[in-house]
């Protein structure tokens, strides 16, 4: 079974080398691909110096466009499973084996690494947690399913979902929205408890100013997905 780790990276020069080394050492049955989203720092040079497997986007597409590039790569190279691991070192690759086994044994379409099942490790700020709780609530309201960590980027998907995401994947803040897409298609989503770390470097793509836009945009997107036939 071919498994791929997709590492979206935008200006992650502080942490990308460590992240990839960690993946090479701790997720041995996975291949990896870095999607360099037209970084303005030396992320590209670092990847080339270390001979990392990298795709360089010619223009900045945002997180959704970058991850979708990874899914298209997975499709072209006939991977069975694909998982997103952020380039900032928040996600621990040690959980990947467990997540892929959980997906296979429970015959699921997507498995999300959730911070909030065991409530261990970095729990994010209070404001973020309130936002995440709100998304959990709105997703349950619209689909009836409970997803404890709908904003988690650490998600593993099977071949069928790779094909779906190749055709259509939200541009920015894709996580909660794409969960609703899959639930509406009656795909099976499971969650596995994981421990996340505080980011090793770089800044979050969601600043204080952007968070208002984030809440409105994602709410609207979820709502539109929910009423789509």
């Amino acid at each position: 079974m071919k498994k791929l780790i997709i590492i979206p990276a935008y200006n992650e020069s502080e942490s990308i080398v460590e992240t990839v080394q960690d993946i090479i050492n701790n997720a041995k049955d996975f291949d990896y691909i870095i999607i360099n989203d037209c970084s303005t720092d030396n992320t590209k040079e670092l990847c080339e110096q270390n001979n990392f497997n990298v795709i360089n986007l010619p223009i900045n597409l945002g997180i959704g466009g970058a991850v979708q590039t990874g899914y298209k790569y997975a499709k072209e190279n006939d991977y069975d499973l694909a998982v997103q691991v952020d380039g900032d070192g928040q996600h621990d690759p040690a959980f990947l084996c467990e997540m892929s086994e959980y997906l296979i044994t429970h015959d699921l379409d997507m498995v999300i690494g959730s911070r909030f099942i065991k409530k261990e490790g970095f729990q994010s700020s209070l404001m973020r947690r309130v936002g995440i709780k709100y998304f959990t609530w709105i997703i349950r309201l619209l689909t009836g399913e409970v997803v404890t960590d709908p904003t988690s980027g650490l998600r593993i998907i099977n071949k069928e979902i790779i094909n779906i995401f190749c055709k259509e994947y939200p541009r920015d803040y894709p996580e909660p929205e794409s969960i609703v897409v899959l639930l509406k298609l009656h795909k099976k989503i499971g969650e596995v408890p994981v421990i996340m770390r505080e980011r090793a470097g770089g800044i979050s793509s969601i600043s204080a100013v952007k968070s208002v836009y984030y809440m409105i945009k994602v709410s609207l997107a979820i709502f539109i997905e929910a009423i789509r036939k």
Partner: protein
Amino acid sequence: MDIKLQIIIAVIIFLVLIFIINMIRKGQLVLKYALTWILVGVGILILDLFPNLISGIASLMGVGQPINILFFFGFCFALLLIFVLTVTVSKMSIQIKDLAQQIALNNQSNEKTKNS
């Protein structure tokens, strides 16, 4: 309306139409998107040549001042045009995204075959 003003407006419209058509000829403007502007020019020309049309429409719709009808139509048209542009931009941004992804994927596989 004064006949002098009518002539001036007609001349301006003609110049603008010539300018637009020349841009299409030189390939600086895509005919598909210039079509709306040509239609607007022709529309204004018709209203300019037959000013009674505006008064007629105004009394038909119960608008006191004929000039208000003109403003109203102008505003509606501007909104419509902006909306059409937004639709076009959305479509183009998806196309550009797909192109960028395909280019990046092709570059990567080219590099790989070159190295192996």
